[in-house]
């Protein structure tokens, strides 16, 4: 009888599943949404990191609201700087959706067009839009910096 193990075989590399939030389109969209929410359609890279961290989980969203309101619990909030945000930023700037200049990131007209199309899609990114809307129309740099200075302490 033939040895069942003694047969020729190949390895095939299977594609791996990836979280939707690690896909370029998702991150670029959330980046643009955040920029659009910031005062003057611009923000520093650090601000974007903070806001994108806040956007991702319910816990982070709550912690963020607490900081803005000035009543953070001692065990809350650890901002993670996510390299994925930087890569998304590079793609977005390659697509001319944003322009970067040193630390500053600006939303371009094309980027704004993207956001407006996204806003029209009522069913899309509901939670994220709702959260950003709850923060008020335009976030100021001071508000976000409050978060970063708190981190530094």
């Amino acid at each position, binding site marked *: 009888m033939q040895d069942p193990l003694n047969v020729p075989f190949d390895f095939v*590399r*299977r*594609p*791996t*599943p*990836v*979280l*939707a*939030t*690690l*896909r*370029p*389109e*998702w*991150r*670029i*969209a959330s980046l643009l949404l955040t920029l659009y929410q910031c005062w003057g359609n611009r923000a520093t890279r650090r601000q974007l990191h903070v806001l994108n961290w806040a956007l991702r989980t319910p816990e982070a969203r709550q912690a963020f609201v607490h900081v803005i309101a000035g009543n953070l619990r001692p065990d809350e909030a650890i901002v993670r700087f996510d390299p*994925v945000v930087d*890569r*998304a930023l590079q*793609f977005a700037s*390659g*697509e*001319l*959706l944003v322009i970067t200049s040193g630390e500053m990131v600006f939303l371009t007209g*094309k980027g704004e*067009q*993207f956001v407006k*199309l*996204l806003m029209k*899609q009522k*069913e*899309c*990114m509901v939670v994220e839009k709702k959260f950003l809307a709850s923060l008020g129309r335009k976030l100021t740099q001071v508000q976000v910096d409050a978060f970063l200075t708190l981190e530094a302490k």
Partner: protein
Amino acid sequence: MSLRLRQIEIRISTLRGRFGTRLHFDSSGLVIVRAKNTSGKSTCVQSLIYALGLEAMLTVNQQVPPLQYAVLSRFQYKNEEIRVDESEVLVELENGSGEIITIQRAIVSSTKKTNLISVWNGPMLTQKDTNLERSDYFVRVEGAAQRPLGFHTFLAAFLGWKLPAVSRFDGPDVPLYLECIFPLFVIEQKHGWSGIQSRMPTHFRIREMGKRAIEFVLKLDSYRIAADRQRLREQLNSVSNRWERVVTEVNARAGAFGAVIRNIPPTPRVGWPLVPPPQCLVFDGKEWESVQLATTRVSDRLRELSAIEVPTISEDASRVTEALRAAQKELASLEVAMARANQDNEVEESQNGSIRERIRALEADLQNYQDLKRLRDIGSDLNLSVVTGRCPTCEQEINDVLLPQAAAAPPMSFEENIKFIAGQISAFSTMLSDSERVLEGRRRSMTAIRARLQELRASIRAYRQALTSPEKNASAGAVRERMVLEANIHTYESVSDLLDTALDALGTLAREYEEYSSAMEQLKGDTSGQDESKLQALQLSFVSQLKQYGFSSLSPSLLRISRDTFRPVYEGFDLGFNLSASDMIRTIWSYLYGLMEVARTADTNHLGLLVLDEPRQQQADKVSFAEFARRAAGAKAVGQQVIFLTSEDHETLSSMLAGVDHQYIDFVGEKMIQPLGI
């Protein structure tokens, strides 16, 4: 089951005397009515529809009859404008059994209501018979098709039709209204030619109205089959619901006694009694055992004890001491068991919690992927290169992910990933339901242990008390043991009763379920064999007519009659948009006349009547209806009637109709509305 028009008469009273128009049809067969355009042909057809109380085919407006000004307010006669004082329409009809009636409906009247239709039981128009009886019926009000005095109730009976009940998008079932059926028999000029059944009264909100109407006219079994299937499905659902209620209830009530019911399927099964047989388990502090065994054991013990007198304390002291020691030992071991059970339960609960959390996270990811698909659409609207998997700067191919691009394996595509997540969700859901089942079992045994612990503690107290009370007293421990046994027997009996009652109910349900399921089994397919042969015949007639009439938009042999909608389709799509205007007319001719041809050989509800008001000139100019006339002349031999109203000029017509058996009515160069001789 047929209808033949004998005469249509429009009567208008004016200051200048009586005007109107009269169309007399000699017999069945092809009738050609020729009159100039704008001379009043459409008025005739619309008046016929109006006389039959079918104007919902033309309008939703209930206020003004949907007719031309000529019969409503004023008309032209010999360069003079004449005002309409009163007007009405009368139609003489004959049904399949040779009964003749005349119906009359007022159009403009100061004395007669327009929602009343008077019916005489004989040929009032063609024979001046005065001894006819008149009955009045109403139309266009609620119940016109259901109540005995409704005209459509009367008309349906006159036609020999039994109208099926159909379901609506809202509200209760209604009969298939005549307004839904007549668009297959009467085509009026204004809207009738844009498609098959183009004028349907959609405001009735009847589901699949067009399909139901065709089904009815062809007398297909498919409707009955669909209705039966729907009814059976509802009955099966109701049985399932009642079954689930019984199961939930018996489980909950058994749970209250610390018992567990096993082997009852959560949903109904075919086959009774259940295999394996349902069982009720009770917990005696150490093990689960069936309630029957437990009852026997406990009753035996009780019988043993009852046989002897209750001992005094001094007699019983050594036994009580022994029992106390045993009870204390059991208490200790059960307390350990309880602690362990508690711990196991906590582990399982945290496991359960993490499964739930995992499912939540997966569902969030799935939602994000749904969003991603939309984002991708936006991205491609804006021509972003990442959407196509290319780097926007260097145009090289990139991995569709924001991890380092050199990372090991390529990511899944969107579709793969969505499928993957859905698979994970279903796997974790299975795990969750398994974990729920285990938790429920744990909870039950904990309830039972707790009850047993309480019982033991009470026994221990009683033994202690017994050992310290006066020696001549009856042994409280011995009394207590008897009481506990009795209470247990009582509990076990209640639980057994519960199960028996539940099984009685389930047995009845199982028989119902079996009956409905086997009925459902027998309902195979959507159409019966008879339906199929009718549809085949319709398809044959339809295609051969299209060829005969010179249909050219598509190859006629590629068209078929859909077994789903019963309408003509091309490669599965409803015929319509891809046709030229003249081919649309040929299609409508072929389909409607096809229904008529099928009715000659098969048992249908077709009336054997077709009234076609020719489409307006600009659409029709290329359609020669000579071939149609030739084919429609065949109606005469089988007693069917085809009435064709046209504005072709006389010479063309007479050459087209050479050799075709027909009745010819010509309004030479005149308006159809003229002074009417009495």
